[in-house]
């Protein structure tokens, strides 16, 4: 017995050492160095013919957004930082991204206590962040609400929104243009997380636009904004619909998985429209050798726009291209369709997913 007891005893350290040394070997593989982080930053270039961009009083802007667990959200924070860096009179205080509402509330409270000049806030949950945003406004700090709207119109000085419904409309209109003369065409939709209002808005816009040309969504599946979820949803969808004419996929992050599923099923009788506008998707459109033919942009630069507006508000400046001398209350960004024809125009502001 003692002999058998000893042998494994000796074996374990060996196994451990072997595993560990293999681990050390492998550890060299974490490097991701050759990284061209040129894209993803804010536009920064095309400025209006005014003195808006000239340095004014230094303003401190607090920035808080959800955790960057998704390519688009990572792009948001990156673009906001890049935008702030391009102004010498802006000091951006970036709170660590969080998906915990109470943490985000305390971040905003900290900004209020620190007396920042403006707050750019992309709430994890708009309704939950409304009270603390009101508090900031009452303390005289302008709040710029980005992407997810507050409940109360008093909680933000101005609001920058992407157009989810408009995304659906753009995608639906594009599909109509391509298939318009064929009322029997099969249209499929791969949505994101189905319980989110933004997903419902996108789907509604898509359905409304398709209805304009007599089409409807024949097959609809929902994924979860991840590559894996997209692959699974698409694999099942392709089995559900033996013949498809067009697919709209809400999100280019999950679109990588969707394309993998399409590739693996060997299907190419349809064209696909993406959503959000990742650099990956745009490169695929540029190359033109996959079913991905177009994508609809949901700008990942909206927090960067928020930073710019915050600076203008804090410095009492106006949007120089408008006659109006105040910053507008709400700005809704367009959701253009990117195709091979105009992809060059958009690829520089696309986010890396």
């Amino acid at each position, binding site marked *: *017995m003692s*002999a*058998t*007891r000893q042998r*494994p*005893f000796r074996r*374990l350290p060996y196994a451990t050492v072997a*595993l*560990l040394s*293999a*681990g050390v*070997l*492998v550890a*060299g*593989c*974490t*490097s*991701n*160095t*050759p*990284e061209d982080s040129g894209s993803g930053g804010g536009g920064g270039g095309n400025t209006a013919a005014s003195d808006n961009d000239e340095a004014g009083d230094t303003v401190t802007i607090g920035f808080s957004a959800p955790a960057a*667990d*998704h*390519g688009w959200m*990572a792009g948001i924070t990156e673009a906001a930082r890049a935008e702030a860096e391009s102004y010498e009179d802006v000091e951006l205080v970036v709170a660590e991204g969080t998906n915990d509402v109470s943490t985000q509330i305390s971040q905003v409270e900290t900004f209020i206590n620190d007396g920042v000049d403006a707050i750019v806030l992309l709430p994890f949950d708009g309704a939950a962040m409304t009270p603390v945003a009101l508090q900031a406004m009452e303390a005289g700090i302008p709040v710029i609400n980005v992407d997810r709207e507050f409940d109360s119109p008093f909680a933000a000085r101005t609001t920058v929104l992407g157009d989810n419904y408009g995304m659906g409309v753009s995608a639906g209109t594009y599909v109509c243009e391509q298939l318009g003369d064929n009322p029997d065409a099969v249209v499929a939709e791969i949505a994101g997380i*189905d*319980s989110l209002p933004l997903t419902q808005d996108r789907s509604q816009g898509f359905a409304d636009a398709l209805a304009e040309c007599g089409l409807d969504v*024949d*097959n*609809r*599946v*929902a994924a*979860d*904004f*991840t*590559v*894996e*979820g*997209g*692959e*699974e*949803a698409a*694999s*099942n*969808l*392709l*089995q*559900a619909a*033996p013949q498809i004419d067009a697919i709209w996929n809400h999100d280019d*992050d999950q679109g*990588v*998985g969707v*394309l*993998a599923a399409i*590739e*693996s*099923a060997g299907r190419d009788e349809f064209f696909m429209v993406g959503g959000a506008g990742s650099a*990956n998707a745009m490169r695929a459109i540029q190359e033109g050798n996959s079913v991905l033919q177009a994508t609809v942009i949901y700008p990942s630069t909206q927090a960067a726009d928020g930073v710019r507006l915050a600076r203008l508000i804090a410095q009492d400046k106006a949007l120089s291209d408008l006659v109006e001398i105040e910053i507008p209350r709400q700005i809704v960004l367009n959701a253009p369709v990117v195709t091979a024809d105009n992809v060059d125009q958009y690829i520089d502001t696309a986010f*890396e*997913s």
Partner: protein
Amino acid sequence: MSSDIGGSTALAAGTGKSDADGPGGSRGARSGGLLAGPVGRNLGLVVALVILCIVGVATAGDRFASVDNVLTILRLASVIGVVSIGMTFVIIGGGIDLSVGALVALSSIWATTLATQQMAEDTHWIVMVFTAVVVGGVAGLVNGLVIAYGKLAAFIATLAMLTGARGLAEIIANRRTQIVRDSDFLAFFSGDVLGIPTLVIIFALVAVAGWVLLNRTTFGRRTFAVGGNAEAARLAGIRVQRHTVKLYVLSGVCCGIAAVMLMARTTTGSSTHGTLYELDAIAAVVIGGTLLIGGRGTIVGTVIGVLVFETLGNIFTLNNLSSSAQAVATGVIIVLAVLLQQRLATGGFSFRRPSSGGQAGGPVLTGAPSGAVSGGTTTDGGPGGTRPAPPGKTL
């Protein structure tokens, strides 16, 4: 080696597991039912799967029953299936591994960094496979060491690994999705052999290997023993702590393999891979008849469990139903399958009793021996049954 076997045989008797009955004993044996074997224990699940298939054929007809669709279900089930097999070992061994999803993410990220891919390009794509498996194994080793020697509750230790590994994956990947560029790698794993996707074959191989390991080796016997009663196992001469470490390494290695499969399926490595795998795997393992407190379970049950969930998702998509309804159905299935299984396995259907007891050969064939050997000891307060937690137990 000979005393090894001697020890484990003595142990098997001590914990109420007999060779004739197969590991895991069986509660069905108490009623002397025909359902005492592995089929009986998984009958509820098989029934659920059959019902699902009937529903599938009835509602989606040829689209459901087509070869392509069946292969799609199998292909989608294969990744979570491999993870679940590793999980089965850990749970039978009396532990739990909440970190599987995070380990899949970390392995997939580590194996798809530019450095790894460059190395793979210079040599062979096997480097990526090696990396993923080693990363999974080492993370599993850490889990095991912390649990076995650091005396942390498995729930807490692997919960820590869950957040830690996913965080590390995000840091390495800089929260980007990493595309797999090696076309040979993709061609190999996304291809098929005689029409059967490589992923499905890998799943089958892992399942068979898992079955052999669990049912035909000393390692498997020890796993049941450790999970059944860690103190008794220790007294029987098993190095419980070391065995626990091995179980977590095994689970980690399974995560590494699953990561490779997922990289092939999605053509990417991502820190979002494997989200909620821990729950999917635990659900599959548990409806597969494995006791959550350890000491009993089967690989076959786990495989069927995984297939049930994947088939359900497929049917819902084929019928164009919403994912919310699917979530509700999944919950109902978990409860129903387990209920059905308990009824069938404990002989809840009373007509079974007279039929087996009435026939002359009945008791001799199955009832008497298994009832005496394992039915009594496994479930009725023997070392393998319900028990007070012994001091050395590493649950």
